[in-house]
């Protein structure tokens, strides 16, 4: 009580009252036991939730994937790897993976565009905050609302046709009518929606590069391209690799936009839509579990590869 450092002074005020209300210090042995139990008391609820809602489902899912369970009946039969065989041999089940290709291609465009806008907005540009806000805002919008906005956009006589009409282009093309056109349109919507997040991540990384580096480079006669190549590019490498991973696993697990807009019709069904349909419409819990396990393994594999390629993935930007 004699030691009055500044820190302690700060602390004393709130604890003083409580400390007085507490019982006198308990005996040493129970105290040590109590201390050992303390962290577990804090972790009780978090760990229970983590195990019940993350690990138990994974374990169950793996178990279901070897059965023919329909999700309701008390009966289920062990079928070995049959579900997995079905998944990889029935072409209509595996085909949905190709739809991810559209989203993967779109995310390449998305990353390049985000990088471009992040770079130019990190320099002095008028109305910078306005442009930053406009580019980021779509990421915050409710997915169902986005789905409707773009259903109207691609509709016959909707926004897109009206805009084309302004330029004298008359089309009566059904934008969501053929698989190629529909998937391209949906992938474009996903670029519209997610570009903002990539952009803000890149911008944050670029802005955390100390300004003196640019000044020094300019003194050395470096132009904008050199500044990008030798200062910005190395500075954002960790964020870039993170973005690539998020894009790949995102492309494989697309659900909201196609489900809301087309319900998976005209060849726009993705792997997750198919899994959800198998599980909750056709009651093929076993097969759906096998599909989910495959997706999970792919996503984990992609993440693992990234960690190996970019070992120092500490994204310390602050």
């Amino acid at each position, binding site marked *: 009580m004699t030691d009055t450092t500044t820190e302690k002074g700060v602390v004393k005020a709130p604890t003083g009252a409580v*400390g007085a209300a507490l019982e006198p210090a308990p005996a040493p042995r129970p105290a040590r036991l109590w201390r050992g139990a303390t962290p577990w008391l804090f*972790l009780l609820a978090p760990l229970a939730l983590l195990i019940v809602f993350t690990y138990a489902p994974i374990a169950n899912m793996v178990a279901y994937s070897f059965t023919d369970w329909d999700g309701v009946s008390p009966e289920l039969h062990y079928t070995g790897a049959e579900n997995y065989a079905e998944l990889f041999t029935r072409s209509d089940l595996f085909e949905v993976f190709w739809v991810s290709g559209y989203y993967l291609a779109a995310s390449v465009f998305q990353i390049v565009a985000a990088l471009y806008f992040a770079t130019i907005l990190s320099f002095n540009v008028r109305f910078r905050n306005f442009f930053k806000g406009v580019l980021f*805002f779509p990421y915050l919008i*409710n997915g169902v609302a986005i789905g409707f906005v773009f259903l109207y956009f691609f509709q016959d006589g909707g926004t897109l046709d009206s805009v084309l009409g302004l330029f004298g282009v008359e089309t009566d093309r059904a934008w969501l009518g053929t698989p190629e056109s529909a998937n391209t349109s949906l992938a474009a919507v996903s670029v519209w929606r997610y570009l903002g997040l990539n952009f803000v991540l890149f911008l944050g990384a670029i802005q955390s590069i100390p300004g003196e580096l640019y000044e020094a480079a300019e003194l050395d006669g470096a132009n904008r391209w050199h500044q990008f190549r030798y200062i910005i590019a190395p500075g954002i490498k960790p964020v870039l690799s993170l973005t690539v991973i998020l894009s790949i696993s995102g492309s494989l697990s697309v659900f*909201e936009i196609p489900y809301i807009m087309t319900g998976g019709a005209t060849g726009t069904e993705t792997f997750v839509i198919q899994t959800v349909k198998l599980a909750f419409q056709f009651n093929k819990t076993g097969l759906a579990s096998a599909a989910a396990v495959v997706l*999970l393994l792919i996503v984990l594999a992609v993440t693992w590869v990234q960690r190996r390629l970019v070992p120092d993935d500490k994204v310390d930007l602050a």
Partner: protein
Amino acid sequence: MTRHALARTLVYLSLIAATVVVLLPLAAVVLTSLKSEREMADDSGALALPGNPLNFHNYATAFEDGRMLSAFANTAVILLFAIGGTVLIGSMTAYAIDRFTFRFKKLVVALFLVAALVPGVTTQVATFQIVNSFGMFDSLWAPIVLYMGTDIVSIYIFLQFVRSIPTSLDEAARLDGANAFTIYRRIIFPLLKPAVATVVIVKGITTYNDFYIPFLYMPSEDLGVISTSLFRFKGPFGAHWETISAGAVLVILPTLIVFLLLQRFIYNGFMQGATR
């Protein structure tokens, strides 16, 4: 010099083009939401201006027939409990992991780390059975518990902040006779305010926008949240784009207001959330 000017012009042109691409689809929906049924029928195109720009009739229809009031109420309840729970759980976990050494600590940390890699959409097939077995299916508890229990990102955010609080504060309080719970409640938690703000914003926006979980777990119409209620517009309002548009605008508007008010926090929050 002219080359420089040209480059500048191109930069601005690209920014303006991007702005048009982002805002035009939204503007068209706002315009449509203000049109009357007759205006919609005369086929003047999506970009035609509404006759009466203050025609809020469609908003009334969307709000009442689309059951948006109960949707906002349900969303508010879920937000309150899910965010409150996430803040408590995240801060407690972070405190326990950072401030204590205990057996199996490495294992516990690894459990949380690996869980962060598992995409939630993949495991719902089996999560559904567990939620169902607790009798939480088709109740507000299902999304609340799932949002609370599976948010590893906010644990990371709290962990970073707890690390930055000097342990000398804990020790000083302990000398004064405070126990671990008092330290957590009186010292750590109050100092976590910036992290709490971040988690509330990020969690709030993602919860407000989530479609998958309420769609799977709360099929009854009374339990519609804004995502699922808006999704149900598809049936009854089929071709009534003026009503659907009004519903979409009603859902987007709160997000826009929050964004304009809290811009800086939102950028930082999502950056911390994504990069961990």
